[in-house]
């Protein structure tokens, strides 16, 4: 039985990813130079996703390297015509989950370490109207960021994959291993929560 089946194209993702798909296809066939092209095409988005999710540049770089190495190891199993980005994000997400699990265990073992990284900076009072606006915008951004972090993991990831990483609903659903409807619902719930923060900010200002 042939394991390789051609899938339909996933038009929801950004156009330059056609290059990533083509590079991965060439790499699967044995063109060693194509790995560099694949790296250039997907690494920035992958790193952006991991940086936002982990809030740690070193960990994000390490996880991105691991993701690309997993793709390298599994290159022979790449399906011709399959979109490469959902696959890459799915691997990155799994590695991230594994990393978070290990970190939790480490924190439990060395309980003296700080439990969380609540790094809310103190903002000095602005003297001018323009500084007030900047301060207001910063605080709003901070509150939105906090709200995003407080979302349930599934909602947060769905929101990030769609809004930050520009994945289509279909691709995001593949990354999360769920249906398009479920992703739509999770993202919608995230939007509702963020809209509430914005509404609240509008009322208080």
């Amino acid at each position: 039985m042939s394991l390789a089946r051609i899938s339909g194209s996933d038009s929801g993702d950004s156009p330059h990813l056609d290059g990533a798909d083509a590079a991965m296809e060439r790499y699967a066939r044995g063109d060693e130079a194509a790995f560099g092209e694949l790296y250039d095409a997907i690494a920035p988005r992958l790193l952006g996703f991991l940086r936002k999710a982990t809030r740690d540049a070193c960990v994000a770089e390490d996880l991105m390297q691991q993701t690309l190495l997993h793709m390298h190891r599994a290159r022979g199993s790449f399906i011709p015509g399959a979109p490469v980005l959902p696959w890459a994000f799915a691997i990155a997400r799994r590695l991230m989950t594994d990393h978070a699990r290990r970190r939790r265990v480490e924190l439990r073992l060395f309980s003296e370490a700080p439990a969380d990284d609540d790094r809310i900076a103190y903002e000095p009072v602005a003297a001018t109207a323009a500084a007030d606006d900047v301060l207001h915008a910063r605080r709003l951004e901070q509150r939105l960021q906090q709200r995003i972090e407080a979302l349930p993991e599934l909602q947060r990831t769905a929101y990030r994959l769609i809004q930050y990483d520009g994945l289509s609903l279909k691709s995001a659903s593949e990354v999360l291993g769920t249906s398009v409807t479920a992703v739509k619902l999770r993202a919608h719930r995230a939007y509702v929560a963020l809209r509430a923060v914005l509404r609240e900010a509008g009322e208080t200002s």
Partner: protein
Amino acid sequence: MSAALRARVLAAAAAEPSPTRAALRRRNTLLGMVAVLSAIGAFVIFAALMSESHLLRLGGEVMAQQHVERPVWLVIATVGGAIGLAVTALRLALGRGGSMLGRSPRWLLYGGVLIPVSLLVWKVSCSLLFGDAMVAWPERPGERCLSLSLLVAVGPLVSFLAIRRHAPVQPALNGAVIGFAAGACAWVAADLWCPVAYVPHLLFGHVLPLFVLAGAGALLGRTLFSLRRR
């Protein structure tokens, strides 16, 4: 993006050879052959151990029911249908539906559960056409068929897990469906060997091994397919 990071990733990939598609296809073909040969080997060994002459040599008794002959058409129908269902199960377990992330959890879940149900329904439906095959045989609860199924399925299970080892999502579910597929292949062997179509016997000796293999597949899948940092 740092150039040093890029160089590091490319160097790490260059230092670790990985199979190309052609190499992987050759490896998977080999694994497929191993699965078939190990299943046939296990079946032949089991049949030899359970043969009348061997049992008599060991001082055992040969039950009268062992001499029951099944109509050829019943064997052809049940085994033919089981082969068809096993191939479908293999396509479900080893195919990925055109996506690098494999089939959706719903597909895997429903497909996995349908494999033993459809095999049982097919066997019972065919046997109903030949009344004698449905006769109650309480003295044959099905422990031999259970052993045969598990013995025959071990090789295919390991081979299929090795073939489908790059499953980044739903590792346990993928492993369980692979277990069901290996069990479906073993069902063919059990069908060839066993003339009993008594439902309690079928449930214990033929259906139970599929769930045992699915459980083993889920555990192995979770361990083997899970992506861990190296």
